[in-house]
């Protein structure tokens, strides 16, 4: 008997509305094969734009089909361009001295000689999409290049 979860349950799951015990029940079950299609459908229903979602890249970011073009698009509508190029190169960047006292107490933060915080924001909505903790001069990390070619 293969598992399958109702769409409403999955919506609540990805919106963080389920109790941790309920989530545990889902985690313990064998994985539901129809999950991908259902999540895509749910996400499609949550975004304000029409383009078809091909894959959810990460929080806020989707690879969508825009008239045959595959681009990275934010939930707010901002477009980052071709999915084969790291979206970070079209984002806003803020390089933070971890010991600036704004996020971490001084003692709790990494030594800036070793590590800087690189915060990537969506130019459209200001969502914080990624935080890299890397030494100065480290190349942007291209986290995920989905295999979409058929």
């Amino acid at each position: 008997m293969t598992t399958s979860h109702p769409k409403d349950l999955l919506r609540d799951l990805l919106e963080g509305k389920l109790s941790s015990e309920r989530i545990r029940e889902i985690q313990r079950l064998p994985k539901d094969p129809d999950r991908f299609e259902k999540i895509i459908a749910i996400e499609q229903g949550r975004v304000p734009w029409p383009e078809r979602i091909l894959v959810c890249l990460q929080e806020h970011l989707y690879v969508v089909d825009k008239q045959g073009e595959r681009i990275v698009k934010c939930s707010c509508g901002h477009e980052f361009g071709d999915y084969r190029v790291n979206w970070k190169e079209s984002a806003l960047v803020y390089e933070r001295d971890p010991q600036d006292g704004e996020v971490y107490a001084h003692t709790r933060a990494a030594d800036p000689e070793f590590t800087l915080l690189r915060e990537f924001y969506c130019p459209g909505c200001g969502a914080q999409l990624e935080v890299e903790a890397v030494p100065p001069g480290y190349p942007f990390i291209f986290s995920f290049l989905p295999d979409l070619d058929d």
Partner: protein
Amino acid sequence: MGNTASEHQLLCYLDTGGTFTDCFVVDESGRFIIGKAPSTPGDIAEGFFNAIEATTPQIGLSLAAFFRRLRILGYGTTLVINALLTRTGRQPGLIITKGFEGLLLMERAKQTWTEYERIDRMHVVTHRHLEPLVPRALIHGITERIDCLGKPIIPLYEQEVREAARALIAQGVEAIVISFLWSFMNDRHERRAGEIVREELAKAGKDIPVFLGVEISPVMRELSRTNAAIIEAYTAPLLQGAIKGVQRRLGELGFQGSLQLMQSAGGLAPAEHVKAVETVQSGPVGGLMGGKFIGDLYGIQNVITTDAGGTSFDVGLVSGGHVNINREPVCARMILGVPVAEIISIGAGGGTLARIDPLTGRLEVGPASAGAVPGPVCYDTGGSQPTVTDADLTLGYLNPDYFIGGRIKLNKPKAEEAIRTQIAAPLGLSVIEAAAGIRQIIDAKMRDTIYGLVAARGLAISDYALLAFGGAGPTHAAGYAEGLPLKGVLMFPYSAAFSAFGAATADYEHHYTRALNMVVPPVAADDKKIELGEQLNRVWADLEAQAREQMAREGFDPERITLRFLAMIRYGRQLNDLVVTSPVRRIEGAADWDALIGAFEQLYDERYARAARFPEAGYDIFEVGLVASAEKIKPKLVPQPLEDAPPPAGARKGERPAYFDGQMVPAAVYELANLRPGNVVPGPAIIEDPTTTFVVPPSKRVEIDQYFTLWLK
């Protein structure tokens, strides 16, 4: 079964299960009968009296006459564990050593995964913290400290205690728990804090119970001890309330005897003297008590009890005539510093579900269960996934028209269809083969659990006899006992109510422990041994006085009390100790000391093989104990004359095909009630009874002895 009781004193035991409350009545001569009524989770007292009312007519007594003769009313309650699971206790506040206010939120990481299945232990995103019984806002830290040697290394800052007490009173808590580190080594700070809190309560004119960690659980490990104290505070008021209710009603009914509660460690004690936390796991204990009783009856020192029900398979051990005790149990996902009878439970029973893993094509049986709802497919109550019961039915072991005496009609075609489509087809097997596979796997799991419990304690299974009871026990015993080099496999006519029977056989018992800090060098001179011995004697004497005082208060004749002196001994720096029953009541000289250590070494050998010995490390003793017990009225199995081996004609109901050794073969079907002592039922056979079904394979036979015990041979 026992005949009707005449003008004798009576003992009655009530076992409140999830679905039924079993009522077990025995008279002085040991004759007994069993009645049952549906449990009433809402008001325990109701199910309690219903069960009694359902039983007394069978004895031919009016309620009044019954209660006039009733001396002891024993009772196994699930109230405490239910209150924990449903979070319906009283709200305590906690006063704890400063710096440990976060203890309950942090708990021990172990509590986030303990009791999980093997897969979930590895699948770490399933791990969860337990919501504390005391919210952070009701926890107050006090500066004070005792160290591991029992030395007050930071004095008690008394003013902080006063402020904490006032704050908790203002916060409207319903009980106050005080738990300080190492209080079991030196309780001065905890007791003084208790006095201060009571003073503050008096000033505020509040009547709120105060619980000290050292009084509830005087053993090492701050979380286990604090958990126990909190559970006591959380549930004791409920339990005492319920007991008062029952006692009032009993009084009205003319009951003059004593109401006794079953304790998690086994043994009954007067209800008004029992700690709530010590009843937390009293449910499955009855079976173990029964195991001990049966063992004594047949002179078998070592017994394995197996209770197979609808959802779980519970295994317990009686070793050397004593029930194995777990001193660090987990209840409702809390690690507790109270002794409970050791019972290993796995998800395996009639309702256990079978499925094919879509990725690997592996047939998996359990641990998930269909429970009572939706239940097995054959119940026709909505269940769609095949269960063990469906397999048993398909294989011809169960009688579709005689399940629970015919109260539930089983839909065989539906069960077969579910197994065909969901198990047989994917594996390319026939329905029968698939059903047999389900049974093989569940039996193997049960067998491995039994073997594991024994082997993992370094014990030898060949020293043990196995008792099979519970609704599904006799149906699967032949399967799960197969290949185990046991001394024997025993089953009982009152199988389904064996727990109630067992509980009724329990003695009065109290367990006492005390911590100390004894580091024994590998080579000790005689005077050192005597010095250590005196240290032990002092603690044993304290515990004995405590025990005698309590049992006197509970109205026992000192002559009838038997005492077992314990020392928990380990090799130097080992972390697990063995509970050693001292060969002497007091250490009078070096020889006695050597005898005690000798007893440890011998036990150690039995457990872990000689090679594991390590006297070079010396010995540590961090805990000693005492078990005080007294006998009481018990059921007696009255031997009956043995009749001929061939069962009487009336016993045989007919025959039906059942699965044995790879094929369906005709098996004779008997009615248990019509079999007689001395009868021998050769396999293949099935013995039916309203409460259970006994399966006898071709290679085996069942012999019924003078006590109507069924021996599978």
